[in-house]
């Protein structure tokens, strides 16, 4: 620190100052005009000396010399998308709209174009690793050069630099917040499953229960035989939540020992018989005393609180068994199997178990017969008048999450006969489905249905349907956009619902149009001769 500043900090009452005795030219100049070091003048002189020295330094500022140049960004081997693309994409990035950003990344990569330079700072500021992974292939040499300048290169490195990425992820896993650690572990798993499991095993014992559960969740979507040993250990975790999660993950792994035990037990509890007309009927028979290992194996975390121990046990056992097993076992179609259990007192538990199994089994979902059979069962109405309700709302909700293009029309038409309470749940499920993995495939059917509803009714019913337009605008695939942009007939009324419906439609058309323009612009640039 400068002597003058030290004196001013301490005060001239404590540290006397005489400008005339100072060696600095600017300060000496002050000394000439204020030769006295009287108390009053000393403070003024010190201040003026500080001012004079500041001007002297400002006027005599010397730049840093011989600063080496910065190596420029390498030449690109692909063209940048244009500034028109940048302008069209900017809003989606500033509002961080993941579905459109993913679409943008996909289209750019397909078009062989690079992210426009003006968009790079915004893109590089994104922290969502899923988006980073999608955008990385279109970052180009310029983007990676820019990221490297901020020491952020590893997160954006090309796939060929996996070891660097892993190092970076390892650091994050060791030092980050729990959210960052979970993300790092999940990213590591995409690159090297064994490595990610090693990190998990090393860290697991010393983590608190909530963190163990969060970290274990990274195995949830793609656990394989190589994870079984670790998961078996985790099934005996001191935290019931962790143990339940490990059990559920193992139960969803068809080759696991747990599944083979559960399959064996499933055969013991679900008994079939045929009457003289050869009509199949099924019933649930549990041992009088449930063995401890049964209970332990059934300890999955998706137990339904308000249901009985027996109900949860049936669910846990049946959900682990592939549905095709029952078709072979009883030589019956899904429709016949569901019909065969319908009269049993545990039918709901069985239907729920089968629905859970259907959720896990992609082949059965594509087949569609099981979805239809379970849908018919669960959506059948019982009761009368105002007390009328669907037979099994829980199964129906779970089936809602499995809607795809093969069954969306049936699911949409369900609304026509649902009682009021069930309709509320249905609209909530519809919103979730439009945010879900099959959103693109089911979106066109939604457009057609909502269009019909709005044209038919000016009431709050139309508004209810219109409220689905918001997620729908982001879910709609490019191919379905022209149809979605055909002029909408909206309710003509001064009622609040009608006005709001009009606004929702306007906003939907705006979002879809902007998405369409962005995609079309990228595709046009891809086909332009370079």
């Amino acid at each position: 620190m400068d002597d003058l500043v030290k004196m001013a900090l301490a005060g001239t009452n404590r540290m006397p100052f005489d400008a005339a005795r100072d060696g600095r030219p600017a300060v000496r100049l002050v000394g000439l005009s204020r030769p006295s070091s009287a108390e009053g003048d000393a403070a003024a002189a010190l201040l003026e000396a500080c001012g004079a020295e500041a001007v002297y330094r400002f006027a005599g500022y010397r730049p840093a010399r011989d600063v080496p140049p910065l190596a420029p960004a390498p030449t690109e081997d692909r063209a940048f998308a244009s500034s028109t693309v940048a302008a069209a994409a900017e809003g989606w990035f500033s509002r961080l709209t993941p579905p459109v950003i993913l679409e943008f990344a996909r289209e750019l990569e397909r078009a062989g174009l690079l992210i426009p330079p003006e968009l790079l700072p915004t893109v590089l500021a994104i922290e969502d690793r899923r988006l980073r992974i999608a955008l990385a292939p279109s970052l180009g040499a310029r983007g990676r050069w820019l990221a490297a300048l901020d020491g952020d290169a590893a997160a954006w490195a090309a796939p060929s630099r996996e070891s660097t990425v892993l190092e970076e992820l390892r650091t994050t896993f060791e030092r980050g917040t729990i959210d960052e650690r979970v993300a790092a572990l999940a990213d590591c798993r995409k690159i090297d499953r064994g490595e990610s499991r090693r990190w998990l095993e090393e860290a697991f014992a010393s983590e608190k229960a909530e963190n163990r559960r969060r970290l274990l969740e990274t195995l949830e979507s793609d656990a394989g035989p190589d994870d079984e040993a670790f998961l078996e250990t985790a099934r005996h975790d001191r935290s019931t939540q962790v143990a339940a999660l490990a059990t559920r993950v193992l139960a969803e792994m068809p080759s696991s020992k747990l599944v083979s035990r559960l399959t064996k037990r499933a055969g013991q509890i679900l008994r079939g018989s045929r009457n003289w007309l050869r009509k199949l009927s099924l019933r649930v028979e549990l041992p009088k005393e449930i063995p401890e290992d049964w209970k332990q194996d059934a300890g999955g975390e998706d137990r339904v609180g308000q249901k009985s121990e027996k109900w949860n046990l049936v669910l846990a056992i049946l959900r682990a068994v592939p549905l095709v097993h029952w078709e072979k076992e009883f030589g019956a179609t899904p429709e016949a199997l569901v019909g065969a259990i319908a009269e049993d007192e545990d039918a709901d538990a069985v239907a729920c178990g089968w629905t859970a199994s259907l959720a896990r089994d992609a082949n059965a979902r594509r087949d569609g017969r099981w979805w239809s059979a379970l849908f018919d069962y669960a959506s059948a109405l019982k009761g009368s008048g105002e007390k009328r309700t669907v037979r099994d709302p829980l199964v129906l909700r779970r089936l809602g999450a499995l809607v795809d293009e093969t069954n969306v029309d049936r699911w949409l038409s369900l609304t026509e006969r649902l009682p009021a309470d069930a309709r509320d749940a249905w609209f909530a499920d519809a919103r979730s489905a439009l945010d879900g993995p099959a959103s693109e495939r089911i979106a066109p059917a939604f457009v057609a249905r909502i269009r019909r509803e709005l044209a038919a009714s000016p009431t709050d019913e139309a508004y209810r349907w219109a409220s689905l337009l918001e997620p729908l605008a982001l879910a709609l695939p490019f191919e379905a956009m022209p149809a979605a942009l055909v002029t909408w007939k909206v309710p003509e009324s001064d009622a609040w619902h009608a006005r709001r419906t009009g606004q929702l439609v306007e906003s939907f058309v705006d979002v879809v149009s902007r998405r369409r323009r962005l995609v079309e612009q990228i595709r046009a640039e891809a086909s332009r001769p370079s």
Partner: protein
Amino acid sequence: MRLTADQIREMAPDAGSAKAGASLAAAKHWTELGRDDAAMWGLCKGSAVYQVKIDLSDLGYYCSCPSRKFPCKHVLGILLLASHSEETVPAATIPSWASDWLARRQESKEKKAAKAEAPKKPVEEAAQAERTANRMRRIADGLDRLDLWLDDLVRRGVAGIEAEGAAPWREQSRRLVDAQAPGLASRVSLIGEIPGSSADWPNRLLAEAGKLRLFTDAFRRLDRLDASLQAELRQTVGLIATAEDLTRDGERISDSWIVGGQTVEDADRFRTQRSWLFGRESGRRALMLQFAPGQQPFAEIVAPGTERRGELVFYPGAARQRAKFISAGEGTLEAVTARWPGFDAIESFLDSVADDLARYPWSEAFGATFRDVTFVPVAGAWFVRDDAGDALPLARVDRRRVLARTGGAPFDLVGEWNGREFRPLGFFFDGAYRIV
């Protein structure tokens, strides 16, 4: 003229208006959209239908909406829409509701010009002299009180004053306003922001307070200084040069003036817009200041990256920095599309700063245009580097915007140097100007 989206966003009174304007930058919100050489217009449907008209010669605008923000979202919306491409606002015949406004505007401009040319009413010299003497006395008293306070501060020691915050400085600033020294008042108010704001705050505080103390001394000896220094000190203290002063003593330079960069500072519910202008032919730099209370608009739209042929008059004084167009809205605005003169070497610029400071040591910052410079990292900090390898430290700005565009290749840079750091405001690369 077609402005870029960045330039238009700079015109917005706040981020909310910029966002709202962006949401209106779609043709579906507009009817009767059109433009010709002189104007652009459109009807925007909001809770009512609003008429939006823009005079392209100086970006003067009118919107019939009731918003108290200027420019409002409708004006920003149509400008942003026009920035997308030439076709978004098509060429058309101007409707009467827009042409009437344009004609009235033109008429008003002409009246203003005529009024400026007209001989002024004779002033009663004795009364004016008395008024001036009274004001000078009040200012002198105000400066005496400021000196007493500053001296006392240093006598006791400035260590720990950061704990008191900016309040004591604001109080001194208010007293200077009462003493009719508003220019100095805003300097004192800004100094109050320094304590505790960075690790080197004592150095910065004492440098600024010291310059202030030197200033008050100089002002007391005003009549012993030369005329240009007197004029500059008067302006710094807040005695505004009159139109007669400008006509009589102001240096006039006719050129094609480029708005190279701009800052807007908010202090005490008062906004100050500083625009650095550079003469394409003369190479001369000028500082154009505009003030506005709260969210009120600045009198004139000065958009960075635009160029206008016209005559600037420099305020008389030693600093030779502050200037204004002789008549507001003079000349036609164009977007900058070609490079303009600037310093090739940082060293030469610093020499010019030294010369300027020798003339007037209280200048706070200097506008600069550098040609063919790059940004470089040095030991964790970023610098602007010239071709010879000399470099100045950069202020904290989003340098990624520049580097992303240039990829490390040389570019022309506009900014402001305050003796500690260079603040980039705009750059020219690949045939286009962009705001930093």
